[in-house]
């Protein structure tokens, strides 16, 4: 069984060149939970991530954190950002990528968080 790849052709409708300014066309839907399932975590009780001011998120039109986070930790639910901190890969991208610096970002306590087996 081929589990790593889906070899279906990607050259389909609306796909013309490799460079598409709108970006999202032709991207496969990915279940990130399945990916995170392969990664080992030692979750702490409390979150190491927090939104500083929920108002700022409400006014943040693009909400890029819903896209650039490689673990889809941030979700927009019922008018606010929720944080699934247990799956955080600690890359730090959201700290740099939130255009309003609205994420209070610290490391999990020493020894907690992601535990790479291979790295």
């Amino acid at each position: 069984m081929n589990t790593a790849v889906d070899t279906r052709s990607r050259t389909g409708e609306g796909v013309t060149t490799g460079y598409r300014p709108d970006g999202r066309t032709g991207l496969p839907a990915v279940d990130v939970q399945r990916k995170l399932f392969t990664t080992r975590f030692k979750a702490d009780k409390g979150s190491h991530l927090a939104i500083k001011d929920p108002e700022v998120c409400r006014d943040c039109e693009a909400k890029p954190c819903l896209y650039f986070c490689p673990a889809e930790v941030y979700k927009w639910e019922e008018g606010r950002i929720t944080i699934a901190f247990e799956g955080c890969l600690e890359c730090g991208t959201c700290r740099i990528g939130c255009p309003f610096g609205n994420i209070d970002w610290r490391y999990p306590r020493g020894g907690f968080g992601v535990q790479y087996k291979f790295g």
Partner: protein
Amino acid sequence: MPEKFDVIVVGAGPAGITAAYCLAREGLKVILIERGEQPGTKNVMGGVLYRQMLDEIIPGFWKQAPLERHVIDQQWWVLSEDSALKVGQRTAVHDREPYNAFTVLRAKFDRWYAAQAVKQGALLITETVVTRLLRDTSGRVIGVETDRPDGQLLANAVIVSEGANTLVLEASGLRARPRADTMAVAVKEVISLPREVIENRFQLQGDQGAVIEFFGDSTLGMVGNAFIYTNRESLSVGLGAMISDFQRRRVRPHELLERFKQHPVVAPLVAGGEPKEYMAHMIPEGGYEAMPPLYGDGFLVCGDAAGMVIAVHREGSNLAITSGRLAAETVVEAARAGDFSARRLAAYREKLQASYVLQDLRQYRHTTPVIEKIPQFLGVYPSLVNRALQEFLTVDGVPKKVKEKKILRMILKERPVTALIGDAWRAWRAFI
């Protein structure tokens, strides 16, 4: 009274471990603080480890270290939607001891390397987060604060080797938060495959290894690239691009990775493999212009924390190792003189300048900014060259003269002559 050391090293990656190793070997009392359960459990790299820099420190390390394969084959594939233009080299020279480079998995490698520093006499403390540097009223760095109870430690000098996510430097007022157009985020999977399959697929024998870098369609033209490296019984498959690009394009890194794995020329390389681990890490790609201060009263900054990465050459761990060694040498000299002031530690910058580290970083200082400003480098051109080549290689009874004209028309449709010349000039500037 908090305990006092000669030197505190923040972070056990290649930079910090090297510094601790070299300092302990000279008899200094050094503590190496790491937030992970073990050194390496938080670390990600492609990763190609170049031999020479570490061999200078531990001669023959490659005979005992946990390495994957020695690299004999390096390739660069320029991808369009459905094709790849390939360049590369396979050389018998790199198949001979002491070898040129190895593929590594950081969780194993860092743990081994840190153990060597401990053997030299360094004290390694894991599961401990350094929260900020301690400074006296004059601003001189005198120690660190950690997340442990009574977590303050003092030292004559602190070496900051915390990696790309520079929380300690920022919390200590030594640098501002990096901009999104100077930082890349990369995702990677380790995909297991039987040894024989890897060796057949990549035409390798024994512990020979191959590495491929992919440009163009692999990142949808965003500034970055994808890679596949061979390990003993797995492939490291990943890609990265600037955080500012992910912001703008609303592309998820893992969607891009999956799309890359499905590319018709890539899919056969990873087919049948089983994903074993998914990970993400930042890479500081701002280069020379984005570097923080490298030293000051009582502190020095090494490796990724100092922005020492040359992205176009996939170099980072080697600069981390060399800078860690040079920082240690500087501190050893400072200890002899009993002077840890910025004036004395300035010798670190001079040593870096005399080495390839700052020379190469200076040479490539325009690369990322230029590529960022010209989206067609990784957007339009990869698709253009592949279409031109396809046209040329398709034998269909059309006379060659007609084909040449068609290719030229196709190119000029995408980029007018003046733009082509401008791009060529800027590309030349970027690398020289």
